[in-house]
């Protein structure tokens, strides 16, 4: 299943939801031309108000990432180029954040890049490592039953 929903308390919730759904789309968790889970399902999964989730969906539609088909529900766009563009933009943001953070530690751009490459070489299968750390595949409801 993949990522969990993270909601912080200072920004509008629907914006955070929008971002996280975009993340899921660009990472392929919701593949192109696939059907999105319903508003209700995702709202329950994220533990948020369905109207707020609805607003997030509306944002996605506005941005053209998602279209509403009367019979088939909400479909992720087939426009792979757009998705790749967005992916690129988000990646650029992450890189900027990384570089700014490294600058605060006193590293220059090239130094930071070198450290990054070294690190990636030392830990060749970041993918594998990441999947080891991921928590077991549980929905929120399952967790509750376990806890109760």
């Amino acid at each position, binding site marked *: 299943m993949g990522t969990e929903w993270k909601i912080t308390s200072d920004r*509008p919730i629907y914006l955070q939801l929008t971002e996280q759904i975009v993340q899921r789309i660009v990472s392929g968790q919701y593949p192109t031309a696939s059907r999105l889970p319903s508003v209700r399902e995702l709202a329950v999964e994220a*533990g948020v*108000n369905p109207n707020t989730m609805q607003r997030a969906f509306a944002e996605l539609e506005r941005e053209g990432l998602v279209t509403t088909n009367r019979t088939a529900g909400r479909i992720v766009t087939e426009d792979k180029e757009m998705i790749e563009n967005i992916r690129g933009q988000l990646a650029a943001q992450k890189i900027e954040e990384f570089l700014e953070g490294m600058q605060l530690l006193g590293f220059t751009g090239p130094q930071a890049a070198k450290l990054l490459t070294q690190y990636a070489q030392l830990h060749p299968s970041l993918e594998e490592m990441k999947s080891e750390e991921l928590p077991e595949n549980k929905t929120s409801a399952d967790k509750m*039953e376990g806890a109760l």
Partner: protein
Amino acid sequence: MNEKLLVCSGLTKLFGTKQALTGVDLTVGSGKIVGLLGPNGSGKTTFLKLINGLIQPTGGSVLIDGQAPGVYTHSITSYLPDRMFLNDWMKVIDLIRFFDDFYSDFDFPKAMDMLQSLGLSSSERLKTLSKGTKEKVQLIVTMARKAKLYLLDEPIGGVDPAARDYILNTILTNYSEDSTVIISTHLIADIERVLDEIVFLKNGEMTLYDTVDNIREREGKSVDQLFREVFAC
């Protein structure tokens, strides 16, 4: 979709000399989850009881689906008070059948499901249950209805976090465009994500009624933080 599921006009309640509620004007549509937020003693319970017809207003009016509190509004409203209302001669299954009998919108299979998922037995006598279990039973019979208006008075108050999650999860899965849930609480951080709109109640007066998103955008902080500022002692 009913834009005016709940309409309060100048709703006022006096207890002797104490102003419990003053001039509340509020219109809530259906398909919303609304938080009724305020410190203890701010009039939240009084407000909910007025909607229910358990007490009569001293001034103003309250209409549910266009009607004053009475038999019809009782049949479309599901009320969870912050007290125990269970009687002691019934068993759990008796209480469920009781609700099924009196409320046409009661979902019997769903109630049994909820009993099971909470690990409760249906044949135990209500008076032998622990406090936490009684609260769960009360929650079940309240939420197993397809009511148009749910009034929950401090549902997550004295409850452990796992049960709290279960309650919020139940509210979300119960959600429908035709129904509205009003949750009164002073524990905002836990439920803010679930709310559409909030009402601030201070000393019986309604000081704010807005959507959660608007507040976050406008104030740049969460409702919880705003609440702490507004109601600082």
